[in-house]
């Protein structure tokens, strides 16, 4: 990955008026890869994207794209396409003219422009809309024009800044799948900024979870979800049951932690006496399974969610005990019911207390 990375951002730093927005970020992206920058607003993900696009100058750091240092180049000489959050379509041009804009600006031969525009119009299913004003399009159509416009010049890298945030849920899911397919077909390397974890998990080859101007974890979606590197990643991506506790002992490769529900085990090693947080993904917990169980808890609330049921249990202040399970055949249990909860030690995550 180090030698053949297509995009290589090293030590990118940016501060606005003394406030650090990016604190020395490294990011390597392989050719053809789809990477998501996932994080809450203000984590620096859009700043990083704008720095790579050249719309913002980094205070420090280097950016290499396809073997060339592009950090000092103006945006129009970087060959980096951007799909903006609000699409930023040219309102005075038609759909086809928007798509042709980059080709004309790059002085491509006229004979080449029309077929390219045709091709990208059909790739985003807008052939019939070629001569429409972009102002007359729906949100989903505008988004497709923005994607086609950015791709028509065949940039080395495509950056997407929350391009789905203005679309309603159903349309968004369709567009995500569509866009992913299109980028795979064209073999485009893409960096995608989002604060929506579902979007990141669905679309990405790898996800970089960002917090306070730094990348907390960069890994494939399954790893991000199953083995979050930090408590922040755990809480930002997906739901989890969390119990605070104190390390009381070590048993070979397992830590024994004293919690409000008694001693529990987790893989790893910690100094005895350390304050820690134990966490388990809610679907990893079994309810009322015979034999193996970890603790008994009193049900506070049961939430029916169609394909699954969410069970919330009474827990100490600061703790959070929840289970997700397939729809229960004999109806929702009543609040106050005592239930036995169990999970594998291997599924237990442990972090220093936040």
């Amino acid at each position, binding site marked *: 990955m180090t030698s053949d990375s297509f995009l290589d951002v090293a030590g990118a730093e940016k501060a606005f008026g003394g406030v650090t927005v990016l604190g020395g970020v490294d990011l390597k992206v392989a050719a053809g890869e789809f990477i998501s920058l996932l994080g809450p607003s203000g984590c620096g993900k859009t700043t990083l994207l704008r720095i790579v696009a050249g719309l913002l100058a980094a205070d420090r750091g280097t950016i290499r794209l396809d073997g060339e240092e592009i950090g000092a180049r103006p945006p*129009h000489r970087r060959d980096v396409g951007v799909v*903006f959050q609000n699409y930023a379509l040219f309102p005075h041009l038609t759909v086809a003219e928007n798509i042709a804009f980059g080709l004309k600006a790059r002085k491509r031969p006229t004979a080449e422009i029309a077929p390219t525009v045709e091709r990208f119009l059909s790739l985003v299913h807008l052939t019939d809309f070629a001569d429409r004003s972009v102002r007359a399009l729906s949100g989903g159509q505008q988004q497709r024009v923005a994607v086609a416009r950015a791709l028509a010049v065949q940039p080395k890298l495509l950056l997407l800044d929350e391009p789905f945030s203005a679309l309603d849920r159903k349309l968004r899911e369709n567009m995500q799948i569509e866009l992913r397919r299109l980028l795979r077909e064209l073999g485009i390397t893409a960096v995608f900024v989002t604060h929506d974890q579902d979007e990141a998990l669905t679309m990405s080859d790898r996800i970089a979870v960002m917090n306070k101007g730094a990348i907390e974890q960069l890994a494939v979606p399954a790893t991000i979800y199953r083995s979050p590197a930090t408590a922040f990643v755990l809480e930002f991506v997906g739901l989890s049951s969390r119990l605070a506790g104190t390390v009381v002992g070590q048993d070979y490769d397992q830590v024994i932690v004293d919690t409000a529900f008694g001693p529990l085990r987790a893989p790893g090693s910690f100094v005895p006496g350390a304050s820690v947080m134990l966490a388990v993904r809610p679907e990893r917990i079994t309810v009322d399974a015979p034999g193996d169980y970890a603790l008994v808890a009193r049900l506070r609330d049961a939430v029916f969610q169609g394909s699954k049921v969410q069970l919330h249990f009474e827990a100490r202040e600061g703790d959070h005990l929840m289970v997700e399970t397939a729809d229960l055949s004999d109806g929702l249990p009543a609040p106050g019911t005592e239930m036995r909860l169990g999970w594998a030690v291997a599924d237990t995550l442990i972090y220093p207390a936040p």
Partner: protein
Amino acid sequence: MTTKAAPSAWRDPVALLAAPAVLYLLVVYAFPLLWLFMKSLTGPGGLTIQPYVAFLSDPFNWRVVGNTLRVAAWVTVVCFVIGYPAAFALARAGAVLQIVMLVSIILPLSVGAVVKAFAWQIVLRRDGIVSQTLVGLGLWDEPQRLLFTETGLVLGAANIFLPFMILPIYSVVKLIDPRLSEAGATLGATPLYRFTHVTLPLTLPGIVSGVAFVFSMSVSMFVIPSLLIGDRFQTLATLTGRSFLLMRNEQLGSTTAVILLVLAVSIVVGSTWLARRIGGSQT
């Protein structure tokens, strides 16, 4: 949006909202104008176009027409060159700075052209600030008088009409998403290409109104040339004024007034049409 055809202006009650304005303009503007027009066509022996023939056959009058259009064109150009970037600075400034700038543009309008023209008389004198600055910078060898010159007139008039260029362009620029230029950049467009293909076409409606305002005001200005250049330099407007006020020649006055009106309207309408055409075919 409903699918039914747009209601005609006669049936749409909203059109009635324009009635007071229409009535007012008819009484105080259209009728006097018509009277003026008739006056210019009425000779001692009835209807005649003799005043127009006489006016157009006198080379002095052609110079007057030339003066009028040349000064108005220069004033418009100066206002545009200064006002266009200023409108961007204004639109992109922070909230507080924007209010300060807006007030400093709008407030001077309340002073009135006469006071400002007198102020410019002081500025343009041989020992005025313009002359002294240029000598100080070494651009002029000795102090010169700009007062009572065409340059002085253009400078003074441009200053007075500048807000009418800045404000319409500002109101359009404020509506332009700054991301559009960024989008152009990421598509490979140079700053110049972005300006000519994104910014300029999108600001064209503002430019058209700004130019129309400033041109029609400077083609018809009367007080400013009277104070800044004097009687030796005649424009259609000052000639009209002199005809009515000094020469008591209502026929000459109404003739020049009609010619001025026709010229101004056709140039403003013509340039608007041309700009729209260029803007419409912009790709």
